[in-house]
């Protein structure tokens, strides 16, 4: 879908936070907000839901746990039972450290790769920046401007209250 983005540039965390809340309240569809660091509260101001990656992490953790359990039991009791000091072949307590390490390793790597996959980040990707200063010291709110009913002047007036630095339209964006 082709759509225009209407961008507002801010220079301060509180301004962008308030402006985002005001835009959301006024009912403008927010495409995204860009910030040089993680501004706490921006995600709720935008109305984003908490990420589901925690569940992904849990699933990977469970997979790691099962892998750790099964590999050790299979090796220790089925494939090559080894008598170590007369202890039982399926001694869970001795297996716990490796089970724990495998769980941590797989859940950690799993959630990181899931995050990279979900956010479409990969080595060498060309970054799409609404403004080159957004990784340094500027904040950008990007609203979706679908048709002529989008009143850019009203938006600008709304943003002016929050020390808007500049506003601009971006047309050649494919959403």
């Amino acid at each position, binding site marked *: 879908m082709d759509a225009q983005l209407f961008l507002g540039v801010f220079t301060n965390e509180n301004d962008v936070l308030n402006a985002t809340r005001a835009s959301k309240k006024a009912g403008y569809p927010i495409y995204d907000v860009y910030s040089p660091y993680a501004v706490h509260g921006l995600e709720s101001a935008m109305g984003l839901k908490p990420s589901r990656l925690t569940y992904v*992490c849990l699933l990977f953790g469970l997979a790691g746990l099962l892998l750790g359990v099964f590999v050790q039991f299979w090796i220790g009791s089925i494939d090559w039972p080894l008598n170590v000091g007369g202890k039982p072949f399926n001694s869970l307590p001795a297996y716990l450290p490796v089970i724990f390490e495998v769980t941590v390793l797989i859940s950690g790597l799993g959630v990181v790769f899931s995050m990279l996959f979900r956010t479409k980040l990969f080595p060498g990707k060309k970054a799409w920046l609404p403004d080159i200063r957004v990784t*340094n010291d500027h904040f950008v709110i990007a609203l979706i401007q679908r048709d002529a009913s989008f009143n850019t002047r009203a938006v600008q007036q709304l943003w002016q209250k929050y020390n808007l630095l500049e506003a601009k339209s971006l047309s050649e964006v494919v959403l």
Partner: protein
Amino acid sequence: MSTLYSKLRKPIIEGDKSLSQVTDDVAKTLETKPTKLWWFAFLLALTALVAGVVAVTYQIKMGIGTWGLNKTVGWAFDITNFVFWVGIGHAGTLISAILFLFRQRWRTSINRSAEAMTVFAVICAGLFPIIHMGRPWLFFWIAPYPNFRGPLWVNFRSPLLWDFFAISTYFTISLVFWYIGLIPDLATLRDRAKTKIKKAVYRVTSFGWNGSVRTWNRYETVYVLLAALATPLVLSVHSIVSMDFATSVIPGWHTTIFPPYFVAGAIFSGFAMVLTLMIIARKVLNYQEYITLDHIEKMCKVILATGGIVGLAYATEMFMAWYSVNEYERFVFINRALGPFAWAYWIMVSCNVIIPQLLWFKKLRRSIVFVFMMSIVINIGMWFERFVIIVTSIHRDFLPSSWAMYKPSIIEIATLLGSFGLFFSAFLLFARFVPFIAIGEVKGVLGYGRTNKSAPQIGHTPEPKLEAVEE
């Protein structure tokens, strides 16, 4: 101007930095040519590394008979170095993960370098068991993979195998955690890069990061998850290292307090190393406004706390040796304090327990020179702790006829020197090529301790007020 600052909190970063100033300050190190001092330090570290490489090559060619080990003392220098380096690494994870979970926001200006320190320390640590295997080219045999030797599997009941899993997991997770933290900063550098090469390198390494809040939201979630995973991980790693000793039946090793004792000691020694590195770095790289006296004082407090635990562990060991009425246990501890290695024991006690008590004085905690010397003293003390634990427990074993002394060979000393060379050359390269301070995280704490809770503004723009949230 006084209205700018909160009455309750002091800003973490000094000098009223604006957002772009932070970027400039951190990027400056990477964009200027290295100083003579850096070259001097780097060449020194490289020389030590070369000495280590020569020594390791020699001992691999000749076998570990080139070490000072004998029939009684089967573990000594090599394992001491291993435990020492693993311990150093723990402070980095403590700063990056545990302090993060505890919302200690002062960690932001030291976490990047402390994590780098962790990664390099774990590399140094990992080398020692590999060298100790004698045939390091068969190192991969420790991994359980289907093979044509049976398939013959590893022994999952062995703490040495747990160690392999713990150290390699720790290294992987630390590296990933560190790199994930780096991505936004690499994007910042990408967008200010001037040369073609830099642009290309940062483009590849920054993964196309654009500061989108949708991405930040997921990124922060993953960051918390990694911190929550790394916290028990770091505790497990040194616990498992301690089980290498504790699960044996050697008096002096066979104790249940080893895991917490080792973890506290690891954090203690790691913070000492962080202080050594930070005190030099803040001066040489001009980061005094980022790594402030408050940071140093807080780290001293951590040292004081963990040092107290270590002191308590020493006392507990002594007490239990007496209280258990086990004559072998008693002998080992009397031998430690009064036997032929008493000098090492008393170096350990004075460096780790007695001298650090001076840190109770605020004036000394805030004296850079004193803290720097203290950090070196603790580093030495903690190296000796591992030496004492390992060597004094085994050099006089159950059979007096096989009692022996241990003296390191020149090869072993050169290997230790080489590990320091590796550590410092890696750290110096890190300081030149990677943002030393987490730009993105420091920007987030600029508003801390200021009345409007936001970063100082540049020039003419008015300081905005915090608006009440309307839900």
